[in-house]
């Protein structure tokens, strides 16, 4: 089976992290974002994954070589020379997605994390016999997204409404599709939107079905949702009784600590924390609801909450970092500094406190 992952553009919403690394390679729960999806695809028998990209192919290609061998799955890139929207890339990668088997192929939006119930989706697609099946997920605020209006009993999709002003439904497009090869005949090689142009046609022919996604869902393309997403992901790990989660008297709630990270005495870590490889957390540190990327050093008595600390940064003694502070690569927060929502670009030193959310270039 084949799959296409829409990686797309520059990941500007995840800056400053994406100033150092292309978005699919930014780690989430200590694993590159895209690897979560590729591993789940491999688990249901996908043998080839095509990444639709239009940015930094060299960095991506190096990553792919490494993981192709580790995972035993073929990973190729399909590079857009102009942005092709959400459907155009499928036409561009057509030859890679169709083979004689006539099997359906997966299409995923690279920013989405969930439990990836791909096996259930394959069964759903077979059972309902549609031309295309999409995952939908229930949200509290549907007008932030594209709402899928569907017939609850039959699972048939009626129409799509983008960011509706009035309530039309609470199920939104989760960005996970399973498509028959015939869908490719509907897509021209030009900038095309799958929600606005392709799916509505299939829905009109009553051949589009929607499956409600079991478990959690999050679009982690921006920092606030990344932090929330980590909570959902770790929660899901806990439910599966995963041994990956950390345990100990200094751990509260769900915490992921890489095996090469070191944690000092008298710390309190959690809930909802991920600590990356090679990190050093000195004694007396409090961490909650945060992600600490590879190679970070957090000095004594510091306190971090609801923030992301970028690769190889350092947090000074008694520093307090909170409220969606996002530190890019190689940022050094001096001792005793306070950051309330500072967004700091790579290679900076923070010598004075940031009292209200601001961007530091």
């Amino acid at each position, binding site marked *: 089976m084949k799959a296409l992952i829409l990686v797309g*553009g*520059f990941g*500007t*919403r995840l*800056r*400053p992290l994406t*100033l150092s690394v292309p978005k699919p390679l930014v780690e989430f729960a200590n694993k590159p974002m895209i690897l979560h999806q590729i591993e789940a695809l491999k688990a249901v028998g996908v043998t080839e994954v095509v990444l639709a990209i239009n940015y930094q192919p060299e960095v991506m290609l190096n990553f792919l070589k490494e993981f192709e061998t580790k995972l035993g799955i073929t990973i190729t890139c399909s590079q857009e020379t102009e942005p092709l929207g959400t459907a155009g890339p499928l036409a561009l990668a057509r030859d890679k997605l169709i083979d004689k088997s006539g099997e359906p192929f997966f299409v995923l939006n690279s920013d989405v994390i969930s439990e990836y119930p791909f096996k259930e989706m394959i069964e759903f697609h077979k059972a309902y016999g549609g031309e295309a099946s999409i995952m939908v997920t229930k949200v509290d605020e549907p007008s932030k997204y594209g709402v899928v209006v569907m017939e609850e009993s039959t699972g048939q999709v009626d129409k799509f409404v983008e960011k509706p002003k009035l309530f039309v439904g609470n199920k939104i497009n989760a960005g996970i599709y399973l498509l028959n090869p015939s869908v490719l005949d509907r897509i021209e090689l030009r900038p095309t939107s799958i929600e606005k142009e392709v799916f509505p046609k299939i829905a009109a022919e009553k051949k589009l079905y929607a499956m409600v996604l079991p478990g959690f869902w999050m679009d982690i393309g921006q920092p606030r949702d990344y932090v929330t997403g980590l909570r959902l992901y770790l929660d899901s790990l806990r439910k599966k009784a995963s041994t990956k989660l950390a345990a100990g008297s200094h751990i509260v709630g769900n915490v992921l600590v890489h095996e090469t990270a070191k944690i000092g005495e008298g710390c309190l870590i959690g809930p909802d924390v991920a600590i990356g490889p090679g990190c050093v957390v000195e004694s007396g540190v409090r961490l909650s609801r945060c992600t600490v990327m590879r190679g970070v050093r957090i000095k004594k008595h510091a306190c971090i909450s609801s923030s992301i600390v970028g690769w190889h940064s350092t947090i000074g003694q008694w520093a307090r970092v909170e409220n969606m502070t996002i530190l890019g690569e*190689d940022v050094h927060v001096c001792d005793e500094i306070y950051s309330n929502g500072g*967004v700091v*670009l790579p*290679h*900076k030193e923070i010598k004075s406190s940031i009292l209200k959310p601001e*961007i530091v*270039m």
Partner: protein
Amino acid sequence: MGSSDGKVVAVIMAGGPTKGTRFRPLSLNIPKPLFPLAGQPMVHHPISACKRIPNLAQIYLVGFYEEREFTLYVSSISTELRVPVRYLKEDKPRGSAGGLYNFRDLIMEDNPSHIFLLNCDVCCSFPLPEMLEAHKRYGGMGTILVSKVSAESASQFGELVADPVTNELLHYTEKPETFVSDRINCGVYVFTPDIFTAIQGVSSQRKDRANLRRLSSFEALQSATRNPPSGFVRLDQDILTPFAGKKQLYTYETMDFWEQIKTPGMSLKCSALYLAQFRFTSPNLLASGDGTKNATIIGDVYIHPSAKVHPSAKIGPNVSISANARIGAGVRLISCIILDGVEIMENSVVVHAILGWKSSIGKWSRVQAEGDYNAKLGITILGEAVAVEDEVVVTNSIVLPNKTLNVSVQDEILL
């Protein structure tokens, strides 16, 4: 003192990518020394000034950037100006004087009698031949270019006091907290090779003191910045300050413009200063037009030969348009830098802004700022490939590369 026919080597300090983050977001796409001012890369201006020095043998560009970032530029400027220019990459921070000392063998290869040291991000008229003449008359180890500034702004720089008759440097302080003088260090120097001996002296003195210091553990608690490692020699604090008043260092004052290009806002100001200078030194570089065959030009404007400007547009004052830009009908540009490949559609207005490479500005849109060169958001800056859609207004904002603006923004930084 020294042979008057001796060769001269010029060293231009270019800085590096992790230093000077104040030049972001423009420095995210290009090394600061290559950012264009008045249509030419920033470093081009001191390099062409060096060309006027008699007996110039070699120009070295020294920085922390990767060599490949300067390969193309260095080879093309060497050919264009017919003087050898070479980029040297520093491997670790050694301070401004330490960096010079690090490359002394290369510098002394041509056996120069005099060595110029210039900071790449200085904007001035570079009166280098006159400075050299004055230096030879004074007969010291070095001569510093100085300028008079307002008393309030002087504390941002190195302040100095010079003897009004002999022009000897009597006193030098870097960024003092209290007022010392309104004469400041312009970051342009000429030395005799004795400077290397002086730097070595400072370096070994520091090594000796460091050895003594190891005996006291209390001293070890002091912060590293006050006691830099022995190989680290700063020109200002370690050479100028101690050698002042010893009849070794002299000053040469420039009455022309002088600015430092630390921020994108300042690059717009300095581009205007160089454009004004072109009017005297190379008026053929400036554009002209009256709206009949060519666009209407007001004041000092540079337009690259490959740029296309619609005749109904009105451009200037203080506008610089780079290669392959396309300016549509009825466009008004005031005080801005338009970089390579930018497309500006009909009837738009751009005032006090820098538009990044390959950006596009829609019809009837307006990209503007208040024009305060020193304020954080005083000049609107669009990074590489930013798209501003039709009729959108962007005011006092900074937009990082690859963003599309379909609603108006004001006073914002958009990552």
